């Protein structure tokens, strides 16, 4: 792969090098994410299928309307979840900055931005933990749904079933992303990447982290907005 300069010239597929000019690890990460996209896709499509085969469905604005430390009975739909969304977007931005710093062999920049990303991830997990606890106190859990459909009829438990399963699976991805970022941070601090001469690992961790953000875009829309 020392032939980077000839990457755009003729024989891209001729063998003896990567046709994409990408090392195999990054390629595998991309295809792993493709695979994971199908996992989440299957979850969200199942959710859609059940919703389409059910007559009524709860109004998300009636369900997700509380806010931490706010007085009882506060009515603030969408507010808390928009904060969660922005936390994740900002952590994605700091991750890009970390990757960018890695390209420039800027160890300090990598460390600083990775720490911010980790904090963002933990903050998101904290928010999610609060929201789950709150909903659980209201009586919502797997197999129990205290909310009514938007039209006032009784709702099936599948509303909460899917909510907890899918946000849980996403939260698990955020959690593993945080762990990966912590490992990356430790490796950076130990000068592993300086010795190796490149920060390509950070790039792969970044791909994973952005994917987690990407999934949230879909989860956020499917559960809180539409």
């Amino acid at each position, binding site marked *: *792969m*020392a032939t980077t300069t000839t990457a755009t010239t003729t*024989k891209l*597929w*001729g*063998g*003896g*090098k*990567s*046709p*994409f000019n*990408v*090392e*195999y*690890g990054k*390629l*595998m990460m991309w*295809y*792993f994410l*493709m*695979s*994971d996209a*199908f*996992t*989440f*896709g*299957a*979850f969200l499509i*199942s959710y859609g*299928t*059940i919703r389409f*085969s*059910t007559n009524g469905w709860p109004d998300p604005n009636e369900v997700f309307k509380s806010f931490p430390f706010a007085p009882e009975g506060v009515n603030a739909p969408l507010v808390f979840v928009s904060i969660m969304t922005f936390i994740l977007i900002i952590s994605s931005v700091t991750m890009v900055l970390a990757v960018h710093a890695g390209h420039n062999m800027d160890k300090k920049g990598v460390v600083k931005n990775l720490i911010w990303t980790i904090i963002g991830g933990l903050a998101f997990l904290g928010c999610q933990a609060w929201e789950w606890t709150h909903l659980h106190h209201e009586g919502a859990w*797997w*197999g*129990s749904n205290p909310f009514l459909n938007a039209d006032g009829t009784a709702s*099936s*438990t*599948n509303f909460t*079933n*899917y909510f907890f*399963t899918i946000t849980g*699976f996403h939260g698990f991805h955020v959690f*593993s992303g945080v762990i*990966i970022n912590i*490992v990356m941070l430790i*490796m950076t601090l130990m000068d*592993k990447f300086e010795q*190796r001469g490149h920060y390509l*690992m950070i790039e*792969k*961790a970044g791909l*994973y982290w952005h994917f987690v953000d990407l999934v949230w875009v879909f989860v956020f829309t499917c559960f809180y907005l539409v």
Partner: protein
Amino acid sequence: MSNEAVVHAHGAVATHEGHGDHHHEHHHHETFITKYVFSQDHKMIAKQFLITGMVWAVLGGLMSVLFRLQLGYPDATFPWLEDILGKWAKGGRITQEAYYALVTTHGTVLVFFVLTAGLSGTFANFLIPLQVGARDMASPFMNMLSYWFFFAASIVMLSSMFVETGPFSGGWTAYPPLSALGDASPGSKTGMDMWLISMALFVVSSLLGGLNYIATVLNMRTKGMSMTRLPLTIWALFFTAVLGVLSFPVLFSGFILLIFDRNFGTSFYLSDIFINGVGALPNEGGSAILYQHLFWFLGHPEVYIILLPAMGMVSEILSVNSRKPIFGYMAMIGSLFAIAILAFLVWAHHMFVTGLNPFLGSIFVLLTLLIAVPSAIKVFNWLTTLWRGNIRFTPGMLFAIGFVSLFISGGLTGIWLGNSALDIHLHDTYFVIAHFHIVMGVASMFGMFAGIYHWFPKMYGKYLNNTMGYIHFWVTLAGAYLIFWPMHYEGLAGMPRRYYDYSIWESFKQFVELNRFISTVAMIVFAVQLLFLFNFFYSIFKGRKVTSLNPWGATTLEWTTPINPGHGNWVGEIPEVHRWAYDYGKDGKEFIAQTTPVGADESEHH
């Protein structure tokens, strides 16, 4: 993820930018453990997959013999059965529970462990680096993990057979509500939990393997090995890996929802259920059809995951032993690609009578019948490759030809079953059993046997015994047709699958003799597979030694390695490739290896 660190440490071996370096010289001391157990050499991992697959094939085959015994001799008792199965064969007759458990485990094991892991696990690992010209897989470490996840899945599946309530018994498709409710049947208790754990581990294994295969084919080809110079085996294994990477996660999601339904009181798949002795269940609002959609979104591509590697190997073996270039190389790649795409668009043809919307069903009929086009292209190309060839009937070649025969016979009935109107009569009958066993089960086994006979000299540096090979082939081919051909008649007569005893049905009493005949042939065929196993293990140690580098006179790269290649495959530089893999009988030469530079006066060159 965190293993990436380790992977990179080995990266220098895995990549091959340094043609002609000293990679192969690293004679670091290998212990028994690193060489045979936790090996990172793709050839050893391939053999591990193969032998584990063989163990499962014997177990799965034995299960089929046991339940065929019940079907063939529904009234007889065999005291020795009680000796080996204990309470599962009280009084020498297999119990109904055990019968269903045997059928289920036979299906699961043969589909996933033998024909997925045992087939593409073996040959993708063995052939991809050798035929694209790489020293090993992109990530040997992940490759090793892939095998050990498969091993763990095997152990869990094996253990499930020894739990008190027995292994899972609701059919290999594991449809809820039967699979979701422990109260529904004994097999749906602990056995089902272990079944799910085992399958989840298997999905992980297949993902790790698949990512590796894709990255290796794309990134690690040697100099001059453009994609259109690849042998068709590699193309087939590549598409197989793509199918696995994109469809297994959907099954995984479906299983997670099933686990929640089983253990955490959800009702994703459950609604309006009344269990005898338990009463009505509170579950409301789920849809059992949803599980079937999720399952078959994997399930259909899975059929091609099983079939494509066999197709690829058969293409290669037919060409080598006909001493002719493969007919329609680009059409072969195109049809593989078309099959891979269509595989994702047709899943609901397994569900025509489940309550699927009939209009949606008609679209699935159209898409399903489209598969006949690329399949026919492949069949014609195989036949035209054989046409006027200088055919050498080696055992490998015979199995390859047998594959083509079986693929035609089984494929044609697929066109019947793809019609939703005919499916009203044919669904869940022995016609379906006959169809998929011929086209997917036996045909892929033939592809696998062809591959083993053909590449055994490369794997072990020995030949398999030809006489035993010929006996193995002819008995298996005749047996396969004798077993499954009559089932078409039974199916057309309406005989449903998955029943324990047909002799109590007035309409199917006429088939008692036929069932007995089928069971007898099944036992003979099983015995002949044991002969093959003997041949295999005997030849590893005592087989005739391979003395020339290229015993079949093939053009591909694996035959340029030493007879017993070490880790790293080539001594010295990895050879450069100058032509496609099918220059047979060109310009008066019998064959021209891929490594031979193009001559000045050579006719049209690929």
